[in-house]
């Protein structure tokens, strides 16, 4: 084969290839684009050949990654050409240049439809391929019936029908309603009888999607699937061309077994027997052979069979065969098989009680932790994490610690977190736990998040027996020549609190302790200096009788920092200096920290969050999550000597770092400050909130205008506390608290707030159920899909979901099945229509029965005001006339807002953007002001432009003036209040804004982008 058959195209491609560097390539591409643009401009002179040539060039340039922002019209117009060669090019280039979100695609719908319903088979194929590859929602709505007709038509040839099956699959993914379940179960049964394997393979893919959505409707297809498997795997009844390296269509076998995994069980004994016969044959009859492709294909089938056996929870005998096979796989040299062995072993942990058998392979798994392939190392880490319990925690954690020194940077944070969690969950004794965490900080300080060291401090504070040991360890680490700053923090903290317990040991006099800590001061950052100052104050307090030399030394340091530019350090220095001169009073103020209230481990919480926050809730994912929750249950059986009974499901959430900078020391300061500053005493209601290492609500924190900021702080607490506070009553509204023995996992209010800013994620989760949500918004309408997932191994019954709509929304929820089978997930579409502007919130009243417990939750639905916004950037010419036209109240409202949470202008702009109010830079000449615009849609108002101006005062970030204008007085008012809520009440305050850093790693977020 030589060149492309199009001279101009081949020449262009070789010229691109000959470019010496990227710069030359870009120049060549720009030149070509300019050329194509001019040619397209006077279209009359273009022959069909030229047109084809140019759109191919465009596609080539686009494929190389350059933007091609013109010519889409020409590509799309080729679709309607009468002759095959042009049409073919038009369809292919369009399907590569555009994606489902391009408006241009709409232009093509009619032509595409005509080709689909036309009689020309080759045109039908082209059209179905395009729709199957890039069809979106609109295609789904207008084309699905025609595509269905082709699929079941007896007069269509297989080449059309197989394309129709996959095309329908795509449309179904875009809008599940296009396949009417009632009609389809019979048709599907017939389709599975298909003899042509091309059509059958495509239909099976369609079937997998249908059954994953709702298996109830397709019970009649189950025996057909088993028949297909028998035909392939037992009878080898397939044409030669459909065997692949001697294996009867491995792909079809895999898909069929995948489909069967969506049925909770196989009840009919005959079908079951036939199925197990086939599975047995696959499990036993798969040998390792030399040919790579044959090996891969047969093992693809084998691993799918394993998954099916695990799912059906087959007889013990078969399960032990599976474990034996997996044990063999994780020891082989072939990396793919080893990888899959580890992965499937991890899955197996979740479904059956095979922990003990798997433990036998521990040594082998640890070897894989040192494999040269990072993919394998990751699987090994996951498996070790999953199989860890009290009996093997010591070995596993020590392996992880050892591995930490050599692990890839990309894995270290996860590794550190996992080691810390395992150490905490399964510590045989607490001194070991302290050892592990300190080693962790020592070896991988950069990757140890603050939660980890906060947690160890918490444990030590709450366990008196542990204190001397921890202090001694901290002292030992300080002797090391170069230690990580986190180690300085934790050692300084521990020694400040407990070094007096070591006083009689060599090298542990207050003076020596002070000396060794103070050595580190020049190398540490500002937040750590604050901690060191507190430590010095504590050392001073503990050195009784006072050592004048030490005293002078420390006082000198305090005096030095009295003029420090950092306000926090300065304040501490001033206060400690004054306090330490008061003599005896110092003793009370700097007394040892009281015990922390018991709470959920922030680490475990963190690990859970990363696992749970995902839009994709397939059956297997649900299984994975279920594992996470069973893992937590194990923790309740902690050894008796471990006093802190950490209740895993407790809802008290630890405020995250941004609120709690230096929180370790803040609590002391609270007291200190209380005496010095005569600040009004803490309101008693806040007292129980004393938080892990420090108190967020310490009087120190109150700096803004008292009235408003007190309110905003109350809101911070509500964000943190979840179900306890009034503000969130709506979110959880427990109907008779005794009834709701089931505690939600994660903070329901927080999940709701997160979903106000994004369109997919988890709305609610408890140990049995997870409710995910995915939404799409178009003008005043929206459609949700609720994903109701049963995480358990038995059915959830009496499932009910009722929508309590506020008066401004019209909500239609499709029927919700009364029973959710084990580990299954049902999707319930919910249509929303916005009638008029309002900030009221719709509520989903969701209940189900698990065992004898009736669980009921009222959950706020994120169908909030900003979902009906369409970000609309506006130019100065458009903005100012409008702004002047809307002269004053009630169309234009202005308000001075106080108690605004501290944020930079950039953060504020991000906040507005995330509310879909697009910030228009340059409109306001004053750089500390923001102007934002959006279009609001509702049935009564239609599209309305909204204008917002925010004037900030660089000198005082806690207040601003906001002006909001629109043509509708209600909208203006509601919008103003809405923005105010977000500026003041800080729904996301208990957690740093999740989007940016998650984006890279969060499959949910990424998926939301894909879907």
């Amino acid at each position, binding site marked *: 084969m030589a060149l492309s058959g199009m001279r101009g195209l081949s020449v262009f491609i070789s010229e691109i290839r000959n470019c010496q560097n990227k710069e030359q390539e870009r120049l060549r591409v720009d030149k070509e684009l300019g050329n194509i643009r001019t040619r397209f401009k006077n279209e009359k002179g273009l022959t069909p050949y030229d047109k084809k040539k140019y759109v191919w060039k465009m596609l080539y340039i686009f494929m190389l990654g350059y933007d091609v922002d013109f010519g889409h019209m020409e590509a799309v117009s080729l679709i309607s050409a009468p002759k095959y060669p042009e049409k073919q090019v038009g369809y292919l280039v369009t399907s590569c240049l555009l994606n489902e979100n391009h408006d241009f695609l709409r232009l093509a719908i009619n032509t595409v439809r005509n080709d689909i319903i036309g009689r020309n088979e080759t045109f039908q194929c082209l059209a179905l391929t395009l729709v199957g590859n890039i069809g979106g929602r609109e295609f789904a709505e207008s084309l699905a019936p025609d595509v269905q007709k082709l699929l079941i038509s007896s007069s269509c040839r297989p080449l059309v029908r197989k394309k129709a099956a996959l095309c329908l699959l795509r449309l179904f993914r875009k809008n599940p309603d296009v396949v009417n379940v009632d009609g389809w179960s019979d048709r599907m049964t017939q389709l599975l009888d298909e003899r042509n394997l091309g059509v059958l393979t495509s239909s099976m893919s369609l079937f997998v999607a249908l059954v994953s959505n709702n298996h109830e409707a397709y019970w009649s297809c189950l025996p057909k699937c088993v028949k297909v498997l028998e035909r392939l795997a037992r009878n080898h009844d397939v044409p030669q061309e459909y065997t*692949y390296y001697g294996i009867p269509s491995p792909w079809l076998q895999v898909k069929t077994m995948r489909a069967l995994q969506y049925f909770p069980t196989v009840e009919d004994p005959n079908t079951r027997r036939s199925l197990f016969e086939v599975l047995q044959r696959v499990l036993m009859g798969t040998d390792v052979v030399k040919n790579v492709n044959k090996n*891969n294909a047969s093992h693809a089938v084998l691993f799918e069979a394993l998954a099916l056996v695990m799912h059906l929870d087959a007889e013990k005998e078969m399960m032990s065969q599976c474990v034996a096979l997996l044990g063999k796989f994780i020891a082989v040299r072939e990396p793919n098989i080893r990888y899959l062995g580890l992965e499937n072993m991890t899955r197996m942990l979740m479904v059956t009680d095979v922990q003990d058998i798997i433990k036998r392979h521990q040594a082998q798994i640890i070897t894989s932790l040192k494999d040269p392939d990072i993919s394998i190392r990751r699987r090994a880490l996951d498996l070790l994490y999953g199989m860890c319990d009290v009996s093997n925690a010591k070995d596993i954690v020590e392996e992880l610690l050892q591995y930490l020194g050599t692990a890839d940077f990309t894995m270290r944070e996860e590794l550190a977190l996992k080691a810390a969690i395992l150490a905490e969950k399964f510590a045989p004794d607490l001194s070991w736990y302290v050892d592990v965490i300190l080693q962790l900080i020592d070896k991988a300080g950069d990757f140890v998040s603050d939660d980890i060291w906060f947690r160890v401090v918490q444990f030590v504070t709450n366990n008196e027996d542990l204190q001397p040991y921890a202090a001694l360890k901290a002292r030992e680490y300080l002797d090391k020549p170069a230690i990580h700053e986190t180690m300085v923090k934790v050692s300084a903290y521990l020694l400040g609190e407990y070094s007096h317990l070591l006083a009689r040991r060599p090298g542990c006099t207050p003076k020596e302790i002070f000396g060794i800590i103070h050595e580190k001061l020049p190398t540490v950052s500002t937040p750590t200096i604050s901690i060191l100052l507190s430590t010095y104050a504590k050392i001073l307090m503990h050195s009784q009788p006072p050592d004048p030399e030490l005293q002078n030394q420390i006082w000198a340091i305090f005096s030095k920092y009295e003029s420090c530019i950092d306000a926090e350090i300065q304040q501490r220095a001033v206060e400690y200096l004054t306090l330490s001169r008061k003599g005896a009073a110092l003793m009370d103020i700097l007394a040892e920290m009281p015990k922390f209230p018991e709470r959920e481990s922030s680490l475990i919480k963190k690990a859970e969050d990363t696992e749970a926050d995902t839009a*994709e809730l397939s059956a297997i994912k649900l299984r994975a999550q279920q594992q996470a929750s069973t893992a937590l249950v194990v923790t309740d059986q902690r050894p008796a000597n471990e006093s802190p009974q950490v209740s895993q499901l407790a809802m008290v959430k630890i405020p995250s770092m941004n609120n709690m900078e230096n929180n370790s020391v803040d609590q002391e300061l609270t007291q200190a400050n209380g005496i010095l500053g005569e600040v009004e005493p803490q309101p008693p209601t806040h007292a129980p909130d004393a938080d892990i290492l420090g108190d967020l609500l310490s009087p120190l924190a109150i700096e803004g205008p008292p009235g408003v900021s007190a309110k905003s702080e109350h809101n911070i607490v509500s964000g943190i506390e979840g179900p306890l506070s009034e503000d969130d009553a709506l979110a959880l509204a427990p109907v008779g608290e005794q009834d709701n023995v089931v505690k939600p996992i994660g903070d329901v209010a927080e999940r709701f707030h997160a979903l106000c800013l994004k369109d997919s994620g988890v709305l609610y989760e408890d140990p049995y159920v997870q409710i995910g949500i995915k939404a799409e918004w178009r003008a005043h309408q929206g459609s949700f899909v609720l994903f109701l997932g049963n995480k358990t191994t038995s059915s959830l019954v009496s499932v009910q979901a009722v929508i309590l709509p506020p008066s401004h929304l019209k909500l239609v929820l499709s029927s919700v099945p009364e029973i959710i089978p084990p580990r299954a997930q049902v999707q319930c579409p919910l249509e929303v229509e916005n009638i008029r502007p309002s900030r009221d919130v719709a509520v989903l009243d969701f209940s189900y029965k698990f065992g004898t417990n009736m669980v009921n939750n009222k959950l706020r639905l994120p169908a909030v005001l900003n979902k009906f916004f369409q970000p609309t950037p506006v130019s100065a010419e458009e903005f100012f006339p409008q702004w002047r036209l809307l002269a004053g109240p009630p169309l234009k409202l202005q308000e001075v807002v106080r108690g605004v949470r501290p944020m930079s202008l950039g953060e504020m702009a991000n906040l507005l953007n995330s509310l879909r109010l697009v910030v228009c830079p340059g409109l306001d000449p004053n750089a500390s002001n923001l102007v934002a615009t959006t279009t609001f849609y509702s049935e009564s108002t239609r599209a309305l432009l909204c204008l917002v101006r925010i004037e900030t005062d660089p000198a005082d970030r806690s207040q601003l003036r906001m002006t909001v204008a629109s043509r509708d007085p209600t909208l203006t008012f509601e919008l103003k209040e809405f923005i105010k809520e977000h500026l003041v009440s800080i729904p996301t305050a208990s957690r740093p804004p999740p989007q940016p850093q998650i984006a890279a790693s969060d499959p949910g977020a990424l998926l939301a982008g894909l879907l």
Partner: protein
Amino acid sequence: MIHFVLLISRQGKVRLTKWYSPYSQKERSKVIRELSGMILTRGPKLSNFVEWRGFKVVYKRYASLYFCMCINQEDNELEILEIIHHFVEILDRYFGSVCELDLIFNFHKAYYILDEILIAGELQESSKKTVARLVSAQDSLVDAAKEEANSISNIIAQATK
């Protein structure tokens, strides 16, 4: 489901891309950059799977070209690996021992072939014979149209002589 197919040369040059999930051009470039960084640097004796942003990328190297397909975490990796090989075998049959140059200059042909193998990120046809038949049928349709056009232009040319 396959979210996208990438063909990248050992030097990191893009030879073919096909996206079954909607990505913007900017995201596409980012994906390609990230994945070439991860995959091209991997040694020869490692597994064919890379975990990436919650997805899995199954890849295989044929001479100087890497064939990559991105799938969901729970999809069957080996099945996809053999879809890659299936694709390569069909290319090989069509071009007659295919090489990178064939795919560079005939990227459009590679697209037509891929469209006969995958739709919506799912396998459409597992018979090499059937795919070959369909692709050559398309080719002959194009040739027939060309001949027709030529003969018409001949007639016109003669008539206007």
